[in-house]
């Protein structure tokens, strides 16, 4: 498993080895949704996910 750190609460997050940029993971401690922005070796960088609701047009 790769590791990431929650930018909000600092908790360590375990991420699947085949994780890709753009993938969304949840922080097990604070529950925040995070977007993977970089995968470098065993470390994964994440940022808080910012999306609006499901309204995707026709």
């Amino acid at each position, binding site marked *: 498993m790769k590791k990431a750190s929650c930018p909000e609460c600092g908790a360590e997050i375990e991420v699947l080895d085949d994780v*890709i940029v*753009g*993938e*969304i993971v949840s922080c097990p401690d604070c529950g925040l949704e995070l*977007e993977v922005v970089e995968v470098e070796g065993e470390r994964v960088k994440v940022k808080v*996910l*910012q*999306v*609006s*609701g*499901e*309204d*995707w*047009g*026709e």
Partner: protein
Amino acid sequence: MVKVGGRLVREGGIPEGILSDLEALSKDWSIIFVHGGADLVTEVAQRMGKEQKFIVSPDGMRSRYTDRETMEIYTMVMAGKVNKQLVASLQARGIKALGLSGADGMLLKAERKKKLVVLDDRGRRIAIDGGYTGKIKEVDSGLIRSLLEAGYLPVVAPIAIDDEYNLLNVDSDRAAAYLAGALKASLLVYCTDVEGVILDGKLVERLSSFEAEEELPRIGHGMKRKVYAALEALSMGVREVVITYGLGEKPVTSALHHEAGTLITP
């Protein structure tokens, strides 16, 4: 407010029952018509060699992925072919129809989606660029009111405009809900290719907003969008929403008299 879905307008016009119904009703009522046309956009895009990509949200909703080129085709088809064919069909019945998109006169202002969350081939959630889709945030009801006062029946294509003047693909059910809400419409009718909300194999004739919200998890995805939109419309001050079958006789009049479809009230 009458919204007619893409499946009903795809053969180049409005079903006969809706046309004759609107002809009669437009004498006494101020009517606004909002249309879909998603299937036609896909068809034309494919004919032009632009394969359409569809994405699935984590909740299982399937949508078109609107990149720049797709948005160009979408605008051509929705504000062009579909909108003008509908205007012509209504005018052939003596109705003073006027076609416009939500971008005209800044009728529908929307915020462009920065990111969308989709399920990838592995079933995992991925954030992708939002493309040219948007969420409506403002309606200029003054323009529509002036058209109604001048005796026109506005026919609105589901296109919005953002702060940077990008044209955006917006859901036509939502567009109808926001327009109806801004105008505090007495009735919003969704004409579809099914009888209404079906639960346990039976048509649900009436739902309160509370009941509709409770039943949402049991409602199929296509219909769920309409129920969501109906709830939004009601929360914005629309008095009643009816989701009904648009291929029968007098579907709008039947909805008005609560004789068909699913009636959703606040």
